[in-house]
């Protein structure tokens, strides 16, 4: 093998992140400035972001040894991921100092997880799929429990770890069965073999187990039970990042496997995915109704959003671009919402997240922060003209196009239910008298992060076309040629 054929450029964003992670780990040994390390990490993710943008604009690149692709699909996922990572680092800069987290481990693991997520989005081989999944998972297990001073963080990490490993085992088993049925571990190979072995139980079972594995990662009901606990127990900045990144990565893999590898079995998987979608959004929304803790409510809300995205997945080929758009919109609004929670969070008493009552009268104390939160809440509720609305519009239109009108209907009804609990947050901020509370944190990075998320949420709503053009037709090149 000639070194020139390795095509390292195909995995440039991931590699950059890995490199940045290493630099951060090393720098931590000698540099005790947590902000500085954070800025270092920020430089790394920004570089990744720029690289992704450049690659999106540039000509296509071949795959990385058929293990990972740099197709538009993967690059858009990278874009989402690096945007999420940029925001996550921005909101963490002040936060980890406040709650006293070790900077090196924190940023290193964050970058590592981000790299794993990007790899997952690009993976075109069962091996890369598994490895990248584990990279991101293991990094996230550790991140979830990084706040060792709090037992709830440990509990979150333990639950995530045990259940994650448990689910990984199923995924892995599914891979083994696919390998057995088709004789290959490359997705392209499997896809080529599928038509000839269609009804082989081994193949079918493999598909089912793969679906289960990714369903766990994206927190689809009934594989979602870990989500609220982990999201609540983990440090908020971690939750922000993983609720977006891990979900996006899981969906990227799910879409690539289901839509690109098993299009001929669409009739087989559309119903389980559809049912998962219905269960997921309904369960998430209903359970969120009963939450008094905003962080936990957002955890359930993230389950519900997984349900909406699953509607797009169930739409098959037609839904791919919708899923990508939704992921981007979701990344902006959800990290934004967590950013506001982070600003409100105080080191000790809010370890398990900010209670709804703490939001009282935020509009009077910090109008811009409250305004940003309002944007995120309305966007999450799917109100036009914000990003969340067009995300839903896109996935539901795909569902309609694929004849899944029922899913669209259930989806919009769910949006209405969700509006109630999002509005409750707005109501506490805007309509209730301010509580006598300490000032929320002020930090330029956090403000910038929140601002970017808010502006992005609005812009993506008013003029979604630029992103829509980007995600359009990604399927055609799902294997990167």
């Amino acid at each position, binding site marked *: 093998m000639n070194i020139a054929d390795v095509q390292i450029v195909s995995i440039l964003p991931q590699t950059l992140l890995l490199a940045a992670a290493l630099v951060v780990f090393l720098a931590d040994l000698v540099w005790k400035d947590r902000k500085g390390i954070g800025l270092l990490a920020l430089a790394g993710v920004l570089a990744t972001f720029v690289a992704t943008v450049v690659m999106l604009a540039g000509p296509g690149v071949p795959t990385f040894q058929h293990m990972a692709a740099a197709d538009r699909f993967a690059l858009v996922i990278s874009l989402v991921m690096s945007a999420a990572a940029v925001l996550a680092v921005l909101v963490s800069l002040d936060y980890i100092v406040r709650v006293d987290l070790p900077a090196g481990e924190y940023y290193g693991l964050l970058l590592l997880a981000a790299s794993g997520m990007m790899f997952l989005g690009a993976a075109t081989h069962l091996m890369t799929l*598994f490895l990248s999944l584990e990279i991101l998972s293991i990094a996230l297990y550790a991140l979830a429990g990084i706040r060792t001073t709090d037992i709830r963080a*440990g509990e979150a990490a333990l639950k995530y770890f*045990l259940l994650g490993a448990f689910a990984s*085992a199923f995924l*892995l088993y599914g891979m*083994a069965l696919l390998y057995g049925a088709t004789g290959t571990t490359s997705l392209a190979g499997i896809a080529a073999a599928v038509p000839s072995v269609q009804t082989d139980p081994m193949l079918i079972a493999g598909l089912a187990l793969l679906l289960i594995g990714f369903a766990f990662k994206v927190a689809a009901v009934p594989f979602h039970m870990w989500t609220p606990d982990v999201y609540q127990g983990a440090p908020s900045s971690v939750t922000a990042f993983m609720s977006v990144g891990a979900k996006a990565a899981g969906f990227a893999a799910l879409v690539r496997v289901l839509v690109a590898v098993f299009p001929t079995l669409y009739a087989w998987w559309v119903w389980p995915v559809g049912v998962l979608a219905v269960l997921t959004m309904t369960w998430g929304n209903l359970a969120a109704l009963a939450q008094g803790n905003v962080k936990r409510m957002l955890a359930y809300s993230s389950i519900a959003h997984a349900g909406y995205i699953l509607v797009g997945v169930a739409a098959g080929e037609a839904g791919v671009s919708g899923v990508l758009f939704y992921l981007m919109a979701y990344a902006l609004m959800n990290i934004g919402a967590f950013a506001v929670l982070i600003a409100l969070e105080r080191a000790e008493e809010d370890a398990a997240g900010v209670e709804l009552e703490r939001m009282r009268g935020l509009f009077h104390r910090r109008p811009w922060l409250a305004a940003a939160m309002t944007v995120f809440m309305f966007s999450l509720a799917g109100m036009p003209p914000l990003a969340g609305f067009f995300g839903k519009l896109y996935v539901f239109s795909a569902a309609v196009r694929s004849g899944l009108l029922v899913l669209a209907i259930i989806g919009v009804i769910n949006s209405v239910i969700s509006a109630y609990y999002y509005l409750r947050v707005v109501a506490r901020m805007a309509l209730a008298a301010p509580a006598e509370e300490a000032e929320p944190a002020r930090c330029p990075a956090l403000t910038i992060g929140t601002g970017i998320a808010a502006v992005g949420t609005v812009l993506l709503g008013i003029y979604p076309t630029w992103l829509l053009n980007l995600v359009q037709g990604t399927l055609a090149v799902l294997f990167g040629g």
Partner: protein
Amino acid sequence: MDAIRYLLILSAVLFSIGAAGVLIRRNALVIFMCIEIMLNAVNLTFIALSRQLQSLDGQIFVFMVMAVAAAEVAIGLGIIVSIFRHKPTTDVDDVSLLKG
């Protein structure tokens, strides 16, 4: 020819035992070991299939799985230790502050 079938069944049984163990046992360490059983059952499947298919992919996969499993052990033990520092127990049912 049947050998492969036996091997597959064996690994499926092993996998099920592991899964059942996860559900039944309360000790975090034991649960984790059950998961290891599941992973190894998959490894067995890979190896059997690799032999059947005369392809190396499966065996490479097994190496990867073993490496990953090792990493998981490291992180898992770390988490368990970190909890143990707050609460001297390894019973997973004892750590259920987060719920609802």
